[in-house]
């Protein structure tokens, strides 16, 4: 029906979220409130609980293992899932067995630089691919998608030669630059810019704004939610880096935390509890970043393109 097709070019009529809505028509407001009936509410609850259980189950098991004391067996199911005498000693061991603190700092520096590059490159390119016509654009998108499927290991040695050739070995830039372009991020930004109604850009042009100003002061603020998403993605990409830093860095003092965890998992100190603890330690910073940015992500998304 018409409503469905009309939806594609929905007008940017200001329709802020209900909470801040100044004076909505009372009738509509009542109906929206009533939209969640008791049955729907119940169904949603059940589904959400199932989804949460599927996600959290394996994680809690990991946490249970990490909290077990030295005397307690790590295995045996399901009786020993819950530690009888929870302890943090495994976390302490993880930090003292290898310089995990130092590695965390290194990872932090790599991630900070990685996020900066990822944001900068993804917004610029995503914008160009969405709203600036140029010859070869479709081809370029195809190339991006194609290269996204190639495993990095394949070009590892050649990349190493190039990076060393540029004198970037054992530097932060050498770690970050070769993996700075994230195709997923570019595509997410492109999609966000595509969603902005043309009217907004038209208005800016009529006001006499140039390309750069339109981008900076009109377009960027409209995609804040996606920017937060891309920041999270960039952080995760950098944080997960593992093989490349190991190869390009020759001074072990510069290793990121993932490499440090490999040391823990190795032959000389294989202790499942410590490894579980270390795995959790590695997961905490991304989780923290995610939770800190969460508000940003959601308010950004809620206001989104409609704000213009």
């Amino acid at each position, binding site marked *: 029906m018409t*409503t469905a097709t009309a939806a594609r070019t929905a007008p940017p009529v200001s329709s802020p979220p209900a909470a801040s809505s100044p004076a909505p028509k009372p009738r509509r407001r009542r109906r929206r409130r009533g939209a969640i009936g008791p049955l*729907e509410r119940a169904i*949603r609850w059940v589904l959400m609980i199932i989804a*949460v259980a599927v996600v959290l189950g394996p994680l809690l098991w990991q946490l249970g293992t990490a909290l077990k004391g030295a005397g307690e067996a790590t295995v045996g199911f399901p009786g020993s899932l819950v530690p009888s005498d929870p302890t943090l000693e495994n976390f302490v061991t993880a930090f003292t067995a290898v310089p995990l603190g130092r590695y965390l700092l290194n990872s932090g520096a790599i991630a900070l630089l990685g996020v900066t590059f990822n944001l900068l490159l993804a917004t610029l390119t995503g914008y160009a691919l969405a709203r600036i016509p140029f010859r070869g654009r479709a081809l370029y998108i195809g190339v991006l998608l194609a290269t996204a499927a190639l495993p990095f290991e*394949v070009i590892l040695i050649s990349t190493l030669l*190039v990076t060393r050739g540029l004198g970037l070995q054992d530097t932060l830039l050498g770690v970050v630059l070769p993996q700075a372009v994230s195709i997923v991020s570019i595509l997410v930004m492109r999609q966000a810019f595509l969603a902005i109604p043309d009217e907004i850009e038209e208005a800016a042009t009529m006001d006499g704004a140039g390309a750069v100003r339109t981008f900076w002061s009109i377009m960027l603020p409209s995609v804040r939610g996606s920017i937060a998403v891309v920041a999270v993605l960039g952080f995760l990409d950098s944080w997960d880096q593992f093989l490349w830093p190991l190869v390009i860095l020759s001074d072990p003092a510069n290793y990121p935390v993932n490499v440090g965890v490999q040391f823990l998992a190795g032959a000389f100190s294989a202790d499942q509890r410590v490894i579980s603890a270390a*795995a959790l330690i590695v997961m905490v910073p991304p989780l923290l970043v995610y939770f800190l940015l969460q508000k940003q992500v959601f308010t950004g998304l809620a206001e989104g393109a*409609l704000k213009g």
Partner: protein
Amino acid sequence: MTATAGTVRRSAGRPSRRTPLRRHRWWVPVLFIGPVLAIQLTFLFLPLGNTFVLAFTNASTVGGGVFTGLANFATIFASAAFWDATAHTGLYIVLATPLLVGISLGLAILINTKMRGAGIVRPILFSPLVMPMAVVALMFQYVLSSDGLVNQILSGLHVISEPIPFLTSSQLALVSSVIVTVWKGCGLYTLILLAALQNVSRELDEAAELDGASWLRRTVSVTIPQIRGTIGLVAGLAAIAALRAFTEPYVLTGGGPGTSSTTIVLYLFTKGVSPGTQAGYASAISLVLFVFVLLFASISWAVTRKGRLR
């Protein structure tokens, strides 16, 4: 009433994508995609070109190698192992893509609500996206083992009498990898889809509601069509993720039993990176993989083309 407004706007908005809104000076696109292009030329296309040169040699990962022409490609196409791996990757894409898109879309719609509790559920559902794949796959080795979490629960509920051999049956090993891909991947795709849902205009939904359309009907014929573009994006990303599936089967089953869960990337890896050392041969496989991807991309481009032009 709102629906009418939408229709009016539609006629005004429609042609605008066809002809560029504004024309830019030559340096504008350069400014925007120049930085990425420069980095990609140096750290992607240059090494990639070099890799493709290696594809025509018998180079080892430790160095060396002489030009051997098309010998590597002759070996690849005559190799049953390669076609076997290709078939597994094809199956992986066919299984994983619909599951990833369907579940993510369902979850995104489920949590796109102002209901109390959704705020707590959201970050939990996204949390797999922050976990390194290697850790996730390791975790699932325990979850899917013959006395693991899943088999314990199923036999506890008397659904099964014998444990399901998730990791040791040739029929199930690949499916188990797909399960891990889906568990880990849904967080990201739900996030992207939720972002799109939150950008969707409420007006139409409300209008349809006033017309008396049920929630399900509004979702299917009003909400989902509005995020068609994003669903397409997610499907593309999911297919690519399935195409390069590696860590899941590598950690879970090592590609076994036999070669039943060996994907193309895993095959390439065992030949050219570890434990194999045939860099030239592996480069040739990646060149073939690259051609597959290009084919794949052009097909999906051709299919979605109609929708894209509007």
